[in-house]
């Protein structure tokens, strides 16, 4: 058994045992870290290939609101509401993605289109105030412990769901990373014409990863909505949420499996730590420090925290074994 496998098993054992020895407040934080880590990983599936979407707040909002509204108004179980919200998110991803990818809308322009999508969904949620509660938000009907309603007063259940979800995110990331799709998407991100010339269906590959990313983000939003029970457009959708997803993923490292998770751990710990530290004093200072630290992190560690650590490790390995350096041909 390799050292990494042993570490993984120890990590999983700690994860399983965690709810038994940490106080409820910290369990609540861990659940949030895992759920956001899942969403950040979902974003990184496409973000790592340079398809920078500022529209994931839209998918998260749809994921959170659709099952909650269907439950509140029609008593429809989230077991049906969540797949429906995923379907709507996928449809929206195709409606936005297809023309963008077909017309080669890339880079900043793609970011702007998706940014608009985020805001459209947020404004729609606010505008439909009779149904959604508008900017005041709304609370889901509670029924106590129920698998049918996917509601659990005991945080342990949501902790279990969050762990499974997080592992699904990591699995999806690894499936793409280890498949030939990863190489195709790398090629597309560098040069779409050259990729098409070797037979890669650029449109299909980009749509595929966008749809997977959107669906997983919506799933994360849905579970997050089920967990917090109170939904507000500003906290589950819109530009602020999209920016949070992008910045936290990049800060952690979009090119590494655990980068988005570290991003989630860092941002949530920072937010909570600063909030507790400042309390009611210096209103806004916590957010300012949080913003400055994130900016510094992104400027000085463009590969993210995990990416930077991996880079240092790789450099050390190369220095230790100079013969292992990649060879090059100069003909």
């Amino acid at each position: 058994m390799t050292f990494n496998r042993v570490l993984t098993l120890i990590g999983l054992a700690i994860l399983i045992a965690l709810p038994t020895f940490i106080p409820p407040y910290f369990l609540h934080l861990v659940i949030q870290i895992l759920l956001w880590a899942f969403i950040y990983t979902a974003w990184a599936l496409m973000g790592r290939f340079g398809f920078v979407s500022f529209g994931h707040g839209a998918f998260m909002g749809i994921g959170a609101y659709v099952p909650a509204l269907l439950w509140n108004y029609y008593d429809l179980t989230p077991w049906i509401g969540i797949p429906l919200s995923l379907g709507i998110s996928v449809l929206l991803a195709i409606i936005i993605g297809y023309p963008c990818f077909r017309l080669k809308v890339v880079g900043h322009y793609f970011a702007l289109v998706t940014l608009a999508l985020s805001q459209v969904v947020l404004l729609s949620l606010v505008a439909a105030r009779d149904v959604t509660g508008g900017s005041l938000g709304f609370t889901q009907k509670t029924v106590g412990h129920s698998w049918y309603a996917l509601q659990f007063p005991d945080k342990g259940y949501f902790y279990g769901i969050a762990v499974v979800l997080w592992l699904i995110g990591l699995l999806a990331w690894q499936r793409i990373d280890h498949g030939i799709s990863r190489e195709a998407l790398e090629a597309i991100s560098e040069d779409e014409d050259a990729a098409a010339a070797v037979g890669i269906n650029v449109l299909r590959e980009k749509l595929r990863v966008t749809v997977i990313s959107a669906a997983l983000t919506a799933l994360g939003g849905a579970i997050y909505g089920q967990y917090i029970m109170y939904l507000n457009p500003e906290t589950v959708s819109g530009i602020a949420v999209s920016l949070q997803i992008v910045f936290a993923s990049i800060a952690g490292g979009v090119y590494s499996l655990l980068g988005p998770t570290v991003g989630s751990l860092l941002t949530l710990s920072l937010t909570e730590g600063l909030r507790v530290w400042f309390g009611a004093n210096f209103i806004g200072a916590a957010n300012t420090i949080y913003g400055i630290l994130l900016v510094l992190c992104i400027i000085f560690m463009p590969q993210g925290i995990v990416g930077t650590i991996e880079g240092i490790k790789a450099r050390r390995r190369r220095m230790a074994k100079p013969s292992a350096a990649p060879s090059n041909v100069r003909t």
Partner: protein
Amino acid sequence: MLVVERLCKRFGGFLAVNQVSFELRQGEILGLIGPNGSGKSTTFNLIAGNLRPSSGSIRLEGKEIAGLPAHQICHNGIGRTFQIPRPFRKLSLIENVTLAAYYGQSGAISRAEAYRRAAEALDMVGLPSDESTRTEGLGAAALKKLELARALATKPRLLLADESLGGLDRTEMERAADLLGSIRSKMGITIIWVEHIMGVLMRVVDRVIVLDHGEKIFEGAPAQAAVDPRVTEVYLGKPRA
């Protein structure tokens, strides 16, 4: 094998390719030459699917391919290289070519088989097929070879070679020309070779087409092209009266 009929490409008010027609026979090497701005690269991009024709027809073994997207053109058996090499820098040499071998066959082969074919293509052009060789630091000639290996890995029946001699010294040019000749003789691949350096090209091609201002002004044997007054005029200018 390939029939191009009355091909036109218009960019706004500018007619880049005007009523160009020609046929290509199986196993032939056709040189497509002309001065800068003559329309040869546009013609090439129309055949490869990087541009859509304004009008006209392109048939590959009887099948109309004009206007198909580039990846479908590739699946139909046309491989291409680029004038300025466009390697995928984040990937190693073998990954660059494996990708072409895999997707060139629409993913119908296994990754292992694609890898094997990629190694073959790299061997064919004389590049290493180990996993560690990256594209950084490759010289002009090696990058041109990589372009060629990537195109060959898609198993084309027709290869479109875009200025394969650009940026090479005399010896490298001769080697590149020989390589194209051996691709035809060993693999039976038909080739259209776009070039503006005429000397080496004339030694290898069976036939040349000369374009000027988007129109075909000559079609025939290389030796005839060298003495044709219209061809010498577009390259050297009109003789003084």
